[in-house]
């Protein structure tokens, strides 16, 4: 680290307890509404209430301490663990139907590399009047809403793959393997993988990503038949699983999300529609603390030594906590809102608008599984 950096990391200031409580309430109310609507259809609304309370608590902690990433990571990782627990335990027990997860339409990661096939399906639906095929269009509308509201923030708040990767990357104190030397050189690999998968999925009319790379499939039921194909598919599954689980522990980076996830590249491209940005201060002294801290390899040293935020940044806020000069800010298209006075004035900043948007949407999405996972846990403990 540059010796000029004398201020302690994590110098972001929080709000007063009262303002934090107000912010927490602002998150809790819509979170409870969405969680009740989504999860409450099939299980007790108390589980939805518990999940909304957790979201509200996360909002309070973020506002009170001023630190976004640490509390975000706790929420994000627990949400992903809940998904893993609920989804996989449902598969093992063979009873996914009673849960609200049954309504989750399709994995969002498969959406991106399968997009051309969706377009073809829409064409067929238009041409043939097969209205049952219109499902992907509503999924597309949901994605557009998420992108407008959250953009690239999806990958640091809502994605159930990302939560695993992010949580594991936080566990080691320091990286056992340093990948800074080549990480930026292959940073475009997810974009290349996305284009390749888009084309090959269209050519073979198959969800190639799901068949060959998805690390979440612990069942081989939808792989190809026995033989060369199946062996290769299992090998790639294990490689992707290692990238998701082992590589973050070794490198302290979100390895799968940074170098293999096609949806991350998709969202990096379309995320430009979203107004929220991370912007480095004009007087950045190039100490590179943010470069080392970024789990997504999305910051590089730009011209003049100033931190340059790449399109792959998913606004997780880790660099905000790491910057010794508090020189990174959440902005709207690079602009900050005028400062407002009073105890609640601190909440009228881009940072809290962004956290509100991200946290409520992530809570709503995770209500598809998190309350049900809590119910599973209660049943497991209670016998």
């Amino acid at each position, binding site marked *: 680290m540059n010796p000029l950096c004398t201020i302690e990391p994590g110098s972001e200031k929080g709000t007063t307890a009262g303002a934090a409580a107000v912010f927490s309430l602002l998150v809790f109310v819509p979170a409870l509404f969405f969680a009740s609507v989504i999860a409450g259809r099939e299980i007790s609304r108390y589980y939805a209430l518990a999940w909304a309370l957790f979201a509200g608590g996360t909002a309070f902690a973020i506002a009170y301490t001023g630190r976004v990433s640490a509390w975000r990571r706790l929420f994000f990782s627990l949400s992903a663990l809940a998904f893993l627990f609920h989804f996989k335990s449902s598969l093992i027990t063979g009873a996914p139907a009673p849960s609200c997860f049954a309504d989750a339409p399709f994995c969002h990661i498969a959406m991106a590399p399968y997009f051309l096939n969706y377009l073809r399906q829409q064409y067929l639906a238009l041409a043939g009047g097969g209205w049952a095929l219109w499902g992907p269009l509503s999924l597309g509308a949901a994605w557009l809403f998420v992108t407008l509201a959250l953009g690239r923030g999806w990958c640091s708040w809502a994605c159930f793959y990302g939560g695993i990767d992010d949580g594991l990357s936080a566990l080691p104190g320091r990286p056992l393997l340093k990948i800074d030397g080549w990480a930026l050189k292959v940073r475009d690999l997810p974009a290349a993988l996305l*284009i*390749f998968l888009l*084309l*090959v999925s269209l*050519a073979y*009319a198959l969800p190639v990503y799901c068949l060959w790379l998805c690390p979440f499939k612990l069942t081989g039921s939808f792989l190809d038949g026995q033989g*060369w194909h199946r062996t290769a598919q299992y090998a790639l599954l294990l490689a992707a699983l290692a990238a998701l689980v082992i590589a973050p522990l070794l490198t302290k980076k979100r390895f799968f999300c940074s170098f293999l996830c096609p949806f991350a590249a998709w969202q990096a491209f379309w995320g430009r529609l979203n107004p929220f940005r991370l912007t480095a201060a004009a007087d950045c002294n190039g100490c590179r603390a943010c470069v080392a801290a970024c789990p997504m390899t999305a910051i590089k040293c730009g011209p003049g030594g100033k931190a340059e935020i790449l399109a792959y940044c998913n606004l997780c806020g880790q660099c905000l906590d790491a910057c010794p000069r508090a020189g990174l800010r959440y902005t709207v298209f690079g602009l900050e809102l005028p400062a407002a006075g009073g105890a609640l004035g601190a909440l009228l900043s881009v940072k809290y608008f962004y956290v509100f948007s991200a946290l409520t949407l992530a809570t709503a999405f995770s209500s598809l599984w998190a309350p049900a996972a809590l119910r599973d846990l209660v049943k497991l403990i209670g016998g």
Partner: protein
Amino acid sequence: MPALFSEGFLLGLSTGFYCLASCLPLLAPYLLAEGRSAWKFNFGIFLQFLAGRFAAYMLFALLASLAGQAGRYALPAWALPLGMAGCGLLMAAMAAARVRGEAAPCLLRQDLNPYFKRLPLALGFLTGINICPPFAAGFVRLLELADIMKGFSYFGGFFAATSLFISPVLLGTPWLGRRANEIGRLTLLLAGLWYLALGLKGLIILY
């Protein structure tokens, strides 16, 4: 003869989407990797690719007609996997030479050798001999016709119609920049390895 051209053209029109889907994984990464922010240059690549495909189609028209005359109604089983493996090897080799960076030996460097400027032609040719379902349908028709000139006419029509479906690949290329080229090279490498693996798998199964 015009009737056969029309017949081939109609086959191409009705099945062109499959040709688009088959050719895109090969042509799009190449254009992304080697294209420039200029229509003219990219159109040149596209024309070379089409010329390669045309040569492959005409060769097949000739072979199919001769096979039909000789009473043989099947292609050698190794033709498709070998073409696919060759295609993948060419794509992966081109990409690997570029991905390593400017200092590495560069197969496509413009002042290297005029021969290497014709690589889109080779890629188009190898794409042309990768038999997709519509192509196979046309091929069977030629075996029945067993006439070289009629075969040229039929596959000429098929080529003209399917080329129309492939042409939209040019639409996005005027916005290509250095960054897109780098992503394109990585895509070319992935697609090359994919086709190489599929081709080798086909050959291993045969022998």
